């Protein structure tokens, strides 16, 4: 699951220079308990943060890490337990209280307003409601000064929505520093970053730490903990299972703590497809994004049956629009998509289903699943849309139920009740439902994005196995993933999408991770 990051970034831009020295407080959380209904998110958790350290909070999805930090940030109220700052108990009723104590949090989904400028986002909340005139010029000046003070390269005037993800992250960080935050909490900060950006982020964090700021990183990636953390606290199922200093643990220790057993990596063995027919062909595809910009700029590639093509790239380089075009949800401006020679460029989702093209989007709860409908209805939805399960105008509900039961069993989805509302299933099981629906149709082509996002290790393994099985069955798979490790371990060939173009590509056995990472950062070899 880990990739080897390049030892030196392409262009080391120092993002944050050592700013003025600050003194962060000692923070302690004691016996924190938080329940959501029958589920215990945090179970008697203790957490310590020393001034100036970089502390990693490690655990699987759902282990309780984010909840714990949201409690520290005042967004969530604990059911029991205490927060102590420099030994003194405090109560945070809202983020405002935490910010007043110079504690700030950067969330996984940035809390930025895309329509507003960098400056407006940075000063958000820093002046009271009833303050007088808002002078745009003054704000700009103030933010520019702050950016300089902390050595962050940002243009205050730019619209946040136009900025790439890693720059947006800098805005979030500056926002906190501007408010005088000395303790920074970062929730999965590298989720959407490429290797080069991650390197730069870690440099900045080290700078912040050396100038006295305390940093908490919430993560589920072992490699990051190894790279950057001074100390690590491991959570599993809401309980603290390990707290350790740098130098006293290695990856396997962490993995065992996190999951309870050693990790098994699923990798693909090189596979020769039977016939080298190109099942899916994309030629010179140009797709416009929501804002009218060109998101996909003349992309050409082919996928053969029995092959997994991995599409790598930092978030925001056209993957979403490309996937939508392949799914029939967005019409390309020009170019062609062909399936077994047939032109499907403007095919509707219904037609694609009929041809045997399956889609699994990256935003499953929004696009693939309808939580209010029953499991059986969800599993049969696209069939019904294509005219299936109908007799004399009426739905054949029994058939739908039987089909659902079969799928629930085959994919081991819990609880296996077709009549249950799909929303009652856990996140992991919901993902499996979507996979079950699409994979069971024996598609000839599968377009899948971020297949293991939000899944824990075991579920991820399961998904990887099914994808490989599909490949054995001569399906052509297009795999979009932000997780380079996953991509490289599953794909037969990989291409890198950068600013809407293919910047690099080749069979997995022949490319190096370093070259891929460089291409993702835009400094790679054109191919």
């Amino acid at each position: 699951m880990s990739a080897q990051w390049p030892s030196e970034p392409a262009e080391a831009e120092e993002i944050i220079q050592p700013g003025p020295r600050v003194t962060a407080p000692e923070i302690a959380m004691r016996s924190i308990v938080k329940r959501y209904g029958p589920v215990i998110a945090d179970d008697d958790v203790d957490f310590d943060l020393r001034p100036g350290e970089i502390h990693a909070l490690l655990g699987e999805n759902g282990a309780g890490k984010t909840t714990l930090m949201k409690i520290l940030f005042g967004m969530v109220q604990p059911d029991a337990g205490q927060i102590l700052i420099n030994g003194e108990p405090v109560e945070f009723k809202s983020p405002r209280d935490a910010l007043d104590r110079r504690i700030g949090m950067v969330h996984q989904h940035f809390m930025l307003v895309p329509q507003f400028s960098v400056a407006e986002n940075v000063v958000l909340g820093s002046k009271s409601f009833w303050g007088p005139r808002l002078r745009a010029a003054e704000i700009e000046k103030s933010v520019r000064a702050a950016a300089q003070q902390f050595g962050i390269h940002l243009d205050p005037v730019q619209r946040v929505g136009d900025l790439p993800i890693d720059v947006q992250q800098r805005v979030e960080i500056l926002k906190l520093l501007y408010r005088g935050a000395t303790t920074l909490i970062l929730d999965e900060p590298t989720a959407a970053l490429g290797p080069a950006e991650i390197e730069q982020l870690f440099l900045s964090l080290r700078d912040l730490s050396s100038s006295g700021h305390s940093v908490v990183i919430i993560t589920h990636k072992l490699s990051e903990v190894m790279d950057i953390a001074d100390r690590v606290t491991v959570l599993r199922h809401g309980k603290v299972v390990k707290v350790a200093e740098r130098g006293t643990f290695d990856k396997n220790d962490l993995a065992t703590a996190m999951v309870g057993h050693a990790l098994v990596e699923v990798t693909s063995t090189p596979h020769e497809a039977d016939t080298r027919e190109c099942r899916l062909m994309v030629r010179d595809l140009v797709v416009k994004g929501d804002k009218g910009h060109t998101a996909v700029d003349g992309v050409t590639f082919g996928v053969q049956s029995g092959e997994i093509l991995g599409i790598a790239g930092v978030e925001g380089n056209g993957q979403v629009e490309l996937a939508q075009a392949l799914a029939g949800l967005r019409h390309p401006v020009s170019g062609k998509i062909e399936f077994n020679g047939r032109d499907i460029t403007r095919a509707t989702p219904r037609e694609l289903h009929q041809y045997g093209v399956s889609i699994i989007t990256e935003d499953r709860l929004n696009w693939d699943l309808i939580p209010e409908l029953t499991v059986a209805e969800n599993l049969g939805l696209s069939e019904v849309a294509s005219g299936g399960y109908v007799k004399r105008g009426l739905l054949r509900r029994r058939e739908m139920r039987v089909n659902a039961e079969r799928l629930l069993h085959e994919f081991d989805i819990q609880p296996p009740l077709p009549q249950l509302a799909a929303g009652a299933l856990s996140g992991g099981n919901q993902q499996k439902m979507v996979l079950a629906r699409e994979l069971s149709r024996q598609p000839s082509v599968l377009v899948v994005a971020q297949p293991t996002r939000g899944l824990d290790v075991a579920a991820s393994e399961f998904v990887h196995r099914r994808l490989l099985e599909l490949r054995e069955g001569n399906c052509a798979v297009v795999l979009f993933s932000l997780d380079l490790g996953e991509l490289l371990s599953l794909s037969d060939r990989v291409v890198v999408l950068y600013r809407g173009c293919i910047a690099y590509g080749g069979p997995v056995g022949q490319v190096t991770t370093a070259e891929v990472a460089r291409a993702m950062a835009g400094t790679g070899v054109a191919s």
Partner: protein
Amino acid sequence: MSVTNELQPHVATIETPRKQVPLRSAATSFVSLVAAVLLTGLLIWVLGANPVQAYQGLLSGALGSGYNVGLTLTVATPLMLTGLAAAIPFSARLWNVGGEGQLYVGAVASVLVALTFVHLPAPVLAALAVISGILAGAAWAMIAGLLRILVDANEVIVTLMLNFIALDAADYVITGPWAQNVSPQTRNIPKGVTLPTIWPGTTVNLGLVLALLFAVLAFVLMRNTPLGLSIRATGFNSKAARLAGFSITRITLVAFGAAGACAGLAGAIEVVGVYHALVPDLSANYGYIGIAVALLARLSPLWIIPSAIFFAAITVGGNNLTATSGISTSTSLIIEAVFIILLLAFHVIRLQRPRAS
């Protein structure tokens, strides 16, 4: 191999499957009704009347005699239909607020047909008038659907505006070339062109049967046809519905068309079965009350039947209030509105937020 995954807390705020109507919400509904009654009672008192007397008047007006029960059922007929007119599009998160206008358009169409084709045999003309009402209502509603599909026009505003336009059209028909010179209404439609009374001695006519039929059909549609599933799916998550392959265009047009058909039928029934002419206050806000009916029934076509009867009772009873207590007939409107608002406030009625537009 079994996989343990924790429940994600935020997923838990999902509406429970339709089958369960929890005891708690029944209790809260009852409390809300009591609260509405009390609040309105307070208003009645402010208006200088005796609340107890007023409510007695209301109950007797609605249910006090066979004839009054018949009146209640007669008013329940259009309310069932306008309830369906709201419920079907609402299920797709399409806000059809135009039930009132669609009703009037149906009424206008049926009266015009009945006054024009006078040489046809009475039963045929009656059927023709009713069918014209249905089609006219459907067409009127589809204007909003089309505008939504073509130019993404906000259907709340469009259907509201169409209401006012329809009312103006109806006024024109009443005062214009078809006017009767004795009282403010159109000429009466030919004798015999009517919906037969099914409960002798009351005003209950065949329209009630038609309304019940439409409710049952709507139920079958929503529960057991692909179209119904697609409508509900679109209402919950239009993005996912689209990805699954449903055509949003088709769903929009059919939902609005069906809604307009129901409301148009209501108008036709009022003309052909009740008034035998087009009269100015053919509809006492039936279109808007229909929205309340649909909400109380949680958009379920079968539950709309008792819901409509309930609201009809309040409306009919309310008509009795001026006679018994000297207060405005609008009081019934107040009771109805307060009741539903309280149900909304206490989350007994909760329409899922649309996840995407």
